């Protein structure tokens, strides 16, 4: 009959003789089309740099959290039903506690390996959030968020924010005295929201604080809602990484149109797969030797009791700092109360800062006017304003963290808590600005050094005495790869508004937004924002003038 049928027969015949593994693959390909997928991805090239592992740490700790979390759900009872403790931990025997606390005690003292899994879950959560924080910094400082990766920046940002809330809800589940204090904090913050705050709080807690509902509600949020959304975002994040292909640093043979590295199969499969086990192994060992959240030492939650020196997990520390440093402003009017002392830091400032982080890629491309794709990473020094801003932001975050531990600081270093608080209040405004200025200077200094290296070569440390007695250090010219690496970056000029008066002497209307943009662009790319990089002409002049050492 037709030739196509013969062709199919041929294929079937050929496949008939294939080894078992290939047969299975053929079967799957016939249904799922896996060969098409594999062709594009199996030997996909990934560039190598230590900082590219940070994202992997996040991914792996997320997987570890899911694995251990599922195990915990098998033993944890998300109920606020009051029971009397009768387990093996003597100091709490006979104490009233919620079933949530009771079952966490059971996991920690009676289920074999339960404590280990709990501790792995909690340590992995800390690593997960720390990993995301540092990974985000890496992406920020190298400009990896630029087109076409802005959307992936947003996905990552959402993962970070949701991660904080997932951590917070999980931390609250055991219903112990420490986490309960954190929940009370959150309730107070919700109450401070104007107009709807009281209602939100009643709906969240099923009535007055603490009620009998929040553990079971936090439970479904913690194990289903947020992780579900995060899993989706994570997959989308990874798909985009594959689709865009990884960024790379400048270097010989590397440019905007290629990606240089080693193939997924086998090198990255082995390295990345192996790295998962390394991360898991290290976290397991930490969980073996370092206790975390020993709830039996805190006891069950009671709203009229508190443990002193109460501290949240590190990723919530900044909110402590914000709220401790803020003066207790409260306004009463027309029978209403505005608790600005709580609402400004947590309801306004915190979301505002998050928003700036989220939209940074769009801000930057708006200011620069640069709509091109970027696959070569910036060295942080070559974007001094961005780098300065990032360091300023980290400084601000650290000031908040310090503020969150002001009591610990005060008792530890015998300072007055008043002084520490005032220090934090001033540093809150001043430290980021100082950090920005210093960082920018350091960046410019490093640029200057790069320039010297390109033009005069590398210092060898070898001192030579010239015939007339002068001592000079021998400089060795850089090889061309190095010269290329150090001069590969762009130094864009700021976008100009153009003359405000046109050729007929008529004043042009320039809207304030355009003016603002031009100002920002001038600050970011104008004079003083960089050290002009050497040109080949300068290079030629100097190298021919000096001759070769």
């Amino acid at each position, binding site marked *: 009959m037709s030739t196509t049928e013969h062709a199919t027969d041929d294929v079937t015949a050929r496949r008939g003789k294939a080894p078992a593994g290939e047969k299975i693959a053929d079967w799957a390909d016939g249904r799922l089309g896996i060969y098409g997928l594999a062709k594009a991805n199996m030997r*996909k*090239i990934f560039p190598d740099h230590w900082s590219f592992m940070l994202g992997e740490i996040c991914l792996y700790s997320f997987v570890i959290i899911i694995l251990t979390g599922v195990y915990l759900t098998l033993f944890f009872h998300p109920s606020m039903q*009051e029971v009397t403790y009768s387990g*093996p931990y003597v100091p709490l025997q006979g104490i*009233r506690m919620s079933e949530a606390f009771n079952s966490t005690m059971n996991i920690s003292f009676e289920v*074999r*390996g339960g404590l*280990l899994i709990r501790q*792995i879950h909690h340590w992995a959560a800390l690593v997960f959030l720390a990993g995301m924080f540092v990974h985000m910094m890496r992406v920020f400082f190298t400009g990896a968020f630029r087109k076409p990766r802005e959307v992936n920046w947003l996905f990552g940002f959402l993962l970070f924010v949701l991660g904080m809330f997932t951590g917070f809800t999980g931390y609250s589940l055991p219903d112990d005295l420490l986490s309960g204090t954190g929940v009370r*904090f959150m309730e107070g913050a919700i*109450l*401070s929201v*104007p107009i709807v705050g*009281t209602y939100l709080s*009643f*709906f*969240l807690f*099923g009535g*007055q604080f603490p*009620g009998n*509902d929040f553990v079971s509600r936090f439970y479904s949020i913690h194990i289903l809602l947020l992780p579900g959304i995060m899993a989706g975002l994570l997959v989308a994040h990874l798909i985009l990484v594959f689709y865009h*292909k990884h960024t790379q640093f400048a270097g*010989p*043979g*590397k*440019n905007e*149109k290629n*990606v*240089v590295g*080693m193939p997924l199969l086998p*090198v990255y499969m082995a*390295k990345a797969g*192996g790295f998962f*086990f*390394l991360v*898991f*192994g290290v*976290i*397991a060992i930490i*969980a*073996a*030797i370092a206790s975390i959240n020993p709830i039996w030492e805190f006891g069950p939650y009671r709203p*009229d009791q508190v443990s002193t020196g*109460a501290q949240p997990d590190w990723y919530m520390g900044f909110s402590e700092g914000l*709220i*401790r440093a803020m003066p*207790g*402003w*409260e306004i*009463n009017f027309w029978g*209403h109360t505005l*608790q*600005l002392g*709580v609402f400004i830091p947590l309801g306004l400032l915190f979301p505002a800062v998050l928003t700036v982080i989220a939209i940074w890629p769009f801000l930057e491309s708006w200011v620069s006017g640069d709509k091109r794709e970027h696959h070569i990473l910036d060295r942080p020094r070559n974007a001094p304003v961005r780098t300065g801003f990032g360091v300023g932001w980290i400084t601000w975050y650290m000031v908040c963290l310090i503020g969150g531990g002001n*009591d610990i600081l005060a008792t530890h270093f015998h300072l007055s*808590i008043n002084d520490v608080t005032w220090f934090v209040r001033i540093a809150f405004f001043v430290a980021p600005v100082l950090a920005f200025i210093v960082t920018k200077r350091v960046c410019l200094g490093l640029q200057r050094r790069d320039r010297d290296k390109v033009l005069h070569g590398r210092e060898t440390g070898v001192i030579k005495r010239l015939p007339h007695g002068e001592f000079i250090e021998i400089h060795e010219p850089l090889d*061309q*790869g190095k010269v*290329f690496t150090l001069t590969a970056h762009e130094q864009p000029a700021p976008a100009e508004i153009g003359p405000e008066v046109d050729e007929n002497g008529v004043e042009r209307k320039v809207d304030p937004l355009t003016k603002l943009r031009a100002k920002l662009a001038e600050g970011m790319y104008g004079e003083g924002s960089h050290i002009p990089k050497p040109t*080949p002409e300068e290079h030629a002049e100097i190298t021919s003038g000096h001759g070769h050492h």
Partner: protein
Amino acid sequence: MSSEPGSHEDMSEDNLPSERAHDAHHGAVAVAGDAFADPGLPAHLPRRQDLDEQAAKHSERVVAGLFVLSMLATIGFIASYVTLKPGKIVYIFPVGHVSALNFALGLTLGLALFCIGAGAVHWARTLMSDVETPAERHPIEASPEVRAQVIADFKQGAAESQFGRRKLIRNTMFGAMAMVPLSGLVLLRDLGPLPGKSLRTTAWRKGMTLINPNTNLPLRPEDITTGSLTFAQPPGLSEDDDDFQDVIAKAALMIVRIEPDEIKDKRELDWGHQGIVAFSKICTHVGCPISLYEQQTHHVLCPCHQSTFDLADGGRVIFGPAGHALPQLRISVNGSGYLEALGDFAEPVGPSFWERG
């Protein structure tokens, strides 16, 4: 090849890595105009294992050794699980006193996992090919033809739907879509009761005695000693009650005795009994229970964010983020000589809220 900075962006064909790879490691700066040009990928440097089978064999043994170690660790894990009792505490230097089971399980599991990872990474680094190769990137944007095709397809689809032409359909559809999520919102209504006035009141009523939570007995004025903080709760409250936590979250009380002439606030003095005054224990900042008392100054400190209140001056805030004074409970002594409340707090206790006023 032009030589302005940035020109390497638009690389010409003859500059592509493969073409230039052969002269990459000369390192010498050849022509001045070309000094900043991309010399192309450096040549691959072979590792010891690539040249010396002996070294490769050694790497193989290391990797296999790590995998075997992992297997042994898993056996150790199972053995620990079976043999060690959950309650057993041991001293391990330098970690300190730890649960033997947790320590053994964590260490063996960690080792089993770590060795797999270490083996795989060592394998990749020493034995798998480490030749770097370039792959091309393609712009993410579609070509103009594809773009035109998609836009045309969409326009055709939209036209065929008559979406733009039949405005009535369009608008009612938007209306229906906008309204249907309302049901989901309405369903959330029963998450909790409406606040009503419930945040304005506590369990305290006129004539209630002040109960010592430790002994469950009513307090007498003699029980309140100078210089210490005494806690109290309303009578008839039991930890077994369903709403115990909700009630105590608002009714918790702290009582101090201050020399009457040290009390600066007239109303405070009036509301107490011979210098015995009762204040809400719940911080007006975000609601932590206050627990620290400094007897010389009569200051109490909230441990959460260090708000400090002056109990000799109407519970006024003297430091920290709290926004208003601690509410005071009016007390007196009843016929049997016990301290009693003369009513509820005059204002809501705990953190501020919109309707507080």
